[in-house]
Structure formats: structure tokens, C-alpha cells
């Protein structure tokens, strides 16, 4: 791209905010009541994170992996790509993250954590809780329709944020491998929402920053 320095973020925004949020409205209507199931899965993840079974990391990884794969196909590939050709590449990224979670967490069992909630990363738990309950409420609070709400497991933003929280709780040496794509998505969605003038644009990027700082501080 020549004269690339003359381009602004808004030059890459192909759609209006109205079209973007209508996308969620139509998507939610199409997949209803899958949102209830994914919310229940999110609650199950929270419960599993605090329980002591050895296999829980594998179950959590499998659930998250399936959610990422679903979003790659049903949201990015099948719907978002209609208004943003770059979403096709994003879909590939989400599919890769889904497969990574399944491979590292389920197959290789690299998402273990302290048992019985002892020493459990409370910041990670708080982030998961926020992704399940707090983040979906932001849209309606700032004036968007309830029908456009973004729910964990089917919408990319709360799913990426919840994944970062889970990884703080469970992923040891695999953290950076598994967190790279969710962090990248938080940056991308933040830039998109910022360009659209959404008041909640900084939510996902801020969570990513908190995760990175917390993880680095804890590793010292």
C-alpha cells in the first residue's frame, strides 16, 4: 500500500455501526436459544475451575475450543464476512485458536491448575465472571438493543475475554501460545469499535492489557 501513512483506521471500516450491530441482532435470532446453552457452559467452566477433578482442564479446554470453532464458522465465516472481507482471515484465526485449545488443553492436557480452588487465580476467575455477566450487559447499558447482546460462546468478544481469564487460571507454560490470538482479537475488536465510535471500545483491549500485566507480574 503506497502512502500508507495517509490512511486512518476509518479508511478500513467497511460498514456502519448500524450494520455491525444489526449483524448481532440477526445472528442472535438465527441461533436462539443456543445462547442459553453457551451461557450454561460458561457457568460450568466457572464451576469446574473451582473443583478438584484432574480432568477439568481438559473439559474446559474442549468447551472453549468448540466455542472458538463455532464462532469461526457461524459468526466470522458465515455472517461477518458478508460485510467485512477480512473476516474470512479472522475466521481462520478463530479456527486455529479452537484447534490449539483442543490440542493443548484436551489432547496434551496443558491446561491444569491448582486443585480445589486453592491458589486459584482470582483475577482470572473475575475476568471469566465479567465475560459471562458483565460484558454482555454493556451494550444494553450504553443504549444498544437487547436483541443485539453479545453472549459468551457465540459472540467473539466475551468468548475471547473469558478465554483469557481461563488461561490465567489454567495454562502454565502454554499461556502465551494459547493467549496470543485472543489478545490479538481484543486489539482488533477494540480498534473496530473505536473507529465506529462505540463507547465500550476499550473494554476488550483493557482486559487483554490486565491479563498480560498480571501474567508477567505473577511470573516474576
Amino acid at each position: 500500500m503506497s502512502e500508507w501513512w495517509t490512511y486512518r483506521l476509518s479508511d478500513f471500516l467497511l460498514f456502519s455501526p448500524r450494520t455491525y450491530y444489526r449483524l448481532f441482532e440477526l445472528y442472535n435470532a438465527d441461533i436462539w436459544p443456543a445462547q442459553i446453552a453457551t451461557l450454561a457452559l460458561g457457568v460450568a467452566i466457572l464451576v469446574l475451575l473451582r473443583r478438584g477433578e484432574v480432568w477439568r482442564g481438559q473439559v474446559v479446554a474442549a468447551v472453549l475450543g468448540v466455542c472458538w470453532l463455532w464462532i469461526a464458522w457461524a459468526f466470522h465465516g458465515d455472517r461477518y464476512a458478508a460485510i467485512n472481507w477480512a473476516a474470512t482471515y479472522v475466521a481462520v484465526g478463530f479456527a486455529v485458536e479452537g484447534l490449539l485449545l483442543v490440542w493443548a488443553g484436551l489432547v496434551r492436557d496443558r491446561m491444569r491448575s491448582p486443585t480445589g480452588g486453592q491458589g486459584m487465580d482470582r483475577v482470572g476467575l473475575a475476568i471469566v465472571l465479567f465475560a459471562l455477566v458483565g460484558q454482555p450487559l454493556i451494550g444494553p447499558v450504553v443504549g444498544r438493543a437487547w436483541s443485539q447482546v453479545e453472549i459468551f460462546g457465540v459472540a467473539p468478544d466475551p468468548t475471547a475475554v473469558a478465554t483469557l481469564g481461563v488461561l490465567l487460571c489454567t495454562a502454565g507454560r502454554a499461556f502465551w501460545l494459547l493467549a496470543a490470538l485472543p489478545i490479538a482479537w481484543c486489539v482488533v475488536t477494540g480498534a473496530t469499535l473505536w473507529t465506529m465510535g462505540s463507547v465500550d471500545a476499550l473494554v476488550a483491549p483493557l482486559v487483554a492489557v490486565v491479563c498480560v500485566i498480571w501474567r508477567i507480574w505473577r511470573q516474576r
Partner: protein
Amino acid sequence: MPPSTNVDRRTLMRGLGAAGAGLVLRPVVAWAQPAAMITRAVPSSGEALPVVGLGSWITFNVGNDRAARDGCADVMRAFFSSGGRLIDSSPMYASSQDVIGYGLAKLGKPAALFAADKVWTSRRGRDQVEQSRRHWDIARFDLMQVHNLLAWEDHLPMLFDMKAAGQLRYVGITTSEGRRHHEIEQIMRSQPIDFVQVTYNVLDREIEDRILPLARDRGIGVIINRPFREGALIRRVMRQPLPAWARDIDCANWAQVLLKFVASHPAVTCAIPATTSVDHVRENMGAATGRLPDDAMRRRMIAHVEAL
């Protein structure tokens, strides 16, 4: 940018004369037309085009949202009903081409359509043109432009071949927001293009210095994108009351003031504002009727808007 224009009164009157000739040459279309639609002749053919067209950047990219697609079709219906002809799109605009095709089908393929699209790829341009044609579901494009000069060295010969074969009627190049003007000028001097598409509005007037005079000298039509700075200019002026002098150029609203500034430059063939609103497209098309500003009025318009 200094508050000046390069349009003297004689030049302006010549342009208005050409607009008048365009009125005479205007082809008969199947849609009702206002009595005094201002048209401009395409320099390379003499074909008359209304000075206001319809862009599709962002506004027509509504994906598979049926209600929004119907809304876009309504905008197109109002556009054709008001005498509009030129609709512009690009493969870069995601679903916009498909939405235009949906609207055209819903409106029964209006005969007045002047279909302008772009090739935006670094390779296999002919395949992309064909894919775009299928989205629009038309027999051929009237105008195919190289989007933002991307791989223009490869695409222009291909487009000239398609034009010679009757698969296109006109060939053009585009840029926006003042980018690569030096290269645009070189292509205008060296290639037999029919159209150049550039950004121009009451605040962004860089093309007055070289591009517009060169277009006149070389007989190249000029399509103007971002006449409202993607709406930012409208939002800026809408806070202020419409000046009394707007009546002297038959403007009932700010959109018409801004569009008439663009359309009054005699080198400009067509401006392509984009909108999702039927009311707004009617307002925009109103700028293609009535009196156009003369040079003194253009200077007044610049001073007024710059002071806001």
C-alpha cells in the same frame, strides 16, 4: 489550502453551456425525470450524465440483512425516479455490489442505469470484473475503473481490451483523499482513459490546481468521491443555518449547497454522494437542478464554509 478557485467566469460559462448541451443530448430513460436535470457530457463520447450520481461505500454494505437491502433498493428507486443514472461501487465494498444487484432486480433493471465499478486486485483482474458483473447481474459495465491505482499497469491494458471488445464502454482510474495525485497525472497524460475519480469538496480542493485542468485538456471525465467527506462535512455545516445566498443558487438545504459547489466546476462530470436515506438521496438529486453558482458565488461558499 488557500481560499481560491481556478475557475474563471468564461470557463464556468463554457461548462454551463456544456451542461445545457447535455440536456439536449440526454437519452430517454424509462423513469420519470425532473424537467431541468443538469447533465454533463462525457468528454470521450458526448453521452450526457446527470451531475449527481450515487456512491455505495459503507452505505450499501449491509450484508444479508433483508430489511436493510430493501432500504437500499428504496434509495435506488428514489435515485432513478429523480433522474439519476450513475451508480458506483467496488469489490472492496464487501456486499455493496450484491446489494446493488438486489436493488436493480427489485426495480426491474432500470434502463437509465450507468453502472460504474472498479477492479481491485493485484492479479486476475478479468476474473474479478466478471465476478462483479455477476453481483450486479447486468450484461456489462458502462465504466470500469482501477481502484486506487492498484496494479494499474496490468489492469489498464486488460480494460482497454475489454472496451475494444465491447465488454465495457469506458475505462477509468480512481484515488481518494488526495493520494498519489502525481501518478494520477502521469496516467492521465499517458493513457487513453475516459474517466478519473478523485476527491473534491468545498474544503478539499487540491485537484483544482492540476487534475481538473488536465482533465479538461485531455478530454477526461471526472467523477467526484467524498463530496461530503463521508458525512463529516454535512455534520459540520448542519449546525449552522442555511445562508440566505443559498436561495440564489436554488438550494433548499446544505447537501445541495455542498454538491452544487462540486458540480459547478466545469471539469466535473458527476459527483457520487452515498446515503442510506431516501430523503437524503432526493435532497442530493435536487442539486442536479436549478442554478449553479458562478465563480464569485463559489468563492463566497468557500469563505463561508471555511469560517464555520
